[in-house]
């Protein structure tokens, strides 16, 4: 195999990895926001939920920017086609993320009547909708979208809301809700902690059923399994997902909540790679004609750019992981009454 092809494959895997890490991290923020109206009954409970995402959400969101940036840098054609074809859904996603960010920052800054209720609603929608939209978008990418040989989209916004797309949306909302409930169980005390654990236990069987349903629908609507039949070794990805999901249940039973959250993270990474590796080498699959699919091979940057970017990624991504890990450790432990008194907390 040529060096160029190896680079393209490496970048395809890194592209999948960035999305996986993004979902692993911002996923719990989505879950927290989605659960806010259900678990946050008192003002203090609500503030604990906000501050459970407090120091993290911004750094988590950068993984999205990085995933977008890497798509642009390593696969400019895939980036261009994806963003222009999915113009409306991606801009809606963007607006929901904008509103989510300001809801963190603005909520505690004013005491006008109705102010906190307003931002609580925004916080819920700003986390629930992106989770849903990412699910819809990725399910449609797995399935293929109607693009022609010039990358021009020949569908409508409504067509993206097909049964499989919607199933993907529901699937993502639920896995992030579980992930968020587990995170909240680590970041809260007392009654809220109990509620968070109960929510995780209650969500688990639903996630299991929806996962099985989604896998079934995937066989019906997509070609993802073809790669797994061709290269059975790739089955490691879905296997990790299964291990993760079962691990969540076992750890919940034994009360090891950090491990339960980590298992949920493994599940998310496994699910993301299950989809991404199933698409390989496709990135934007054309449902009109397989020849028009944008792949890692026909949509990538030049060899020089891929090489330089790989160098940058291999040096800096581990550094990023180190200081983000340090940050997570620094702020580890439940959000306490004392923390909420800090004037800089949400």
């Amino acid at each position: 195999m040529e060096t160029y092809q190896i680079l393209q494959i490496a970048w395809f895997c890194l592209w999948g990895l960035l999305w996986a890490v993004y979902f692993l991290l911002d996923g719990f923020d989505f879950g927290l926001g989605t659960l806010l109206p259900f678990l946050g009954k008192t003002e203090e409970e609500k503030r604990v939920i906000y501050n459970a995402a407090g120091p993290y959400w911004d750094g988590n969101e950068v993984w999205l920017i990085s995933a977008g940036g890497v798509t642009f840098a390593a696969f400019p054609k895939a980036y261009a086609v994806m963003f222009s074809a999915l113009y409306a859904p991606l801009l809606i996603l963007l607006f929901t993320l904008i509103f989510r960010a300001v809801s963190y920052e603005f909520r505690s800054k004013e005491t006008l009547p109705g102010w906190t209720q307003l931002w609580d609603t925004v916080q819920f929608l700003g986390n629930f909708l992106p989770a849903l939209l990412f699910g819809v978008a990725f399910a449609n990418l797995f399935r293929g979208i109607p693009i022609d040989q010039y990358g021009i989209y020949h569908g409508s916004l409504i067509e993206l809301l097909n049964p499989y797309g919607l199933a993907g949306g529901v699937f993502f909302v639920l896995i992030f809700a579980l992930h968020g409930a587990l995170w909240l169980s680590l970041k809260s005390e007392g009654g809220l902690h109990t509620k968070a654990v109960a929510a995780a236990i209650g969500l688990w069987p639903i996630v299991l059923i929806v996962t099985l349903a989604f896998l079934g629908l995937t066989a019906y609507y997509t070609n993802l399994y073809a790669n797994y039949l061709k290269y059975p070794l790739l089955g490691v990805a879905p296997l990790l997902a299964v291990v993760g999901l079962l691990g969540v249940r076992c750890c919940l039973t034994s009360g090891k909540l950090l491990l339960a959250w980590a298992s949920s993270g493994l599940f998310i990474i496994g699910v993301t790679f299950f989809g991404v590796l199933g698409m390989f080498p496709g990135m934007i699959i054309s449902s009109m004609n397989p020849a028009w699919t944008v792949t890692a091979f026909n949509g990538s940057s030049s060899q020089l750019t891929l090489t330089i970017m790989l160098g940058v990624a291999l040096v800096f991504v581990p550094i990023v992981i180190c200081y983000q890990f340090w940050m997570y450790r620094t702020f580890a432990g439940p959000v306490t009454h004392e923390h909420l008194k800090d004037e800089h907390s949400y």
Partner: protein
Amino acid sequence: MDDVVLLSRLQFAVAVLFHFIFVPLTLGLSVLLAWMETRYVTTGDEVYKRMAKFWGKLFLINFTLGVVTGITLEFQFGTNWSRYSTYVGDIFGSLLAIEATVAFFLESTFVAVWAFGWNRLGKKTHCFAIWMVAIASNCSALWIILANGWMQHPVGYVIRNGRAELQDFFAVLTNPYAWGQYAHTILSAWMLASFFVLGISAWHLARKSNGDFFRRCFRMAAPFALICALLTALTGHQQGMAVAKYQPVKLSAMEAQWETQKHVPVHLLQIPDRANKMNSLEALSVPGLMSWMAYGDVNAEIKGLKAFPETDWPPVNTTFWSFRVMVALGVIFILLAGVAFLQRNKEEIGPGIARALVWAIPLPYLGLAFGWTVAEVGRQPWIVHGLMRTTDAVSPVPAGNVVLSLIAFIVVYSLLGLIDIYLLRKYACQGPGR
């Protein structure tokens, strides 16, 4: 197609100008905050801690909108400029990706560490966090401006496989145009932040609230404002020479210079007449000044707009007036900063000066917006100077979609901008806590 181009340009203008309301304060105030907190760590004086907390609160309110409006821009290249992205992504995309990986992660992680870490970290570690924010945000700007500088003066590429491919990464990193632009942008951002601190301090000093606290803030910001205002002008002049060298047609539009001449003057009063390709008013002329400013030689020849095909002209009026207003504001900033500098050690600053400084808070924002207008409108009709025309760069999306998204941007941004300004004003007027 023309509609889509115009609408997409408008949308990008809205997105980028709005983004750049928040960015310069982040760039400059982070440096001032790092300085304040360093003073706290080295002297142990609690006033510096209160300073870092007070200005830090305003910094954080401003920071969030800077972040989210930045994501918009990363989306814009793909949603609205997909042909551009396909054509130059090999170079342009990698600069954006490096920005995210190298700088933006650092900035976002440490800003949270700083905001939430007051009671969790040691003094020195906490101070380290704000230095990381300051360094990372200013590095982040470097990568973005290397990307923009490449659009102004593309280097290190080769046209291959129907697109611009990277040939010499080092040339892209050392692009002289981009570095000049970076210096000018950073210094103007630091100037903006120091005017922000001066203005709010002056507001409190005029009301005699927290007198000692704000006098010390004023004393810190005044020299910084003056140095940055002077260096902004100097780097602006340098950048003008770079424009003369690399984008002569932009220079001619900035000066509304129609004919090719030697020993070209600057007309302090000048009104261009685009339709008749001449100036309807030229008065108060300084002979040879423009030749000297562009090439360092009073007798140098400057090519007029008519020396270039009209299809390559940028919009003359917008470029000319934006440049004029920017330069006029730049002069005002030097004068105001000079006055503030002279007043910095007085017990009480004059009420007129205090009022002027409060009203001067928005002026650097305007100055920077006009500066970017010169840079970006002046580059037209090219999206990448001399390489790709803006009309060839736009996405194949229906005009209706762009209309809707443009309206959504205007509505959402106005709303968030108003709330943000309201909160900034509220916390600025509230003053520091105990």
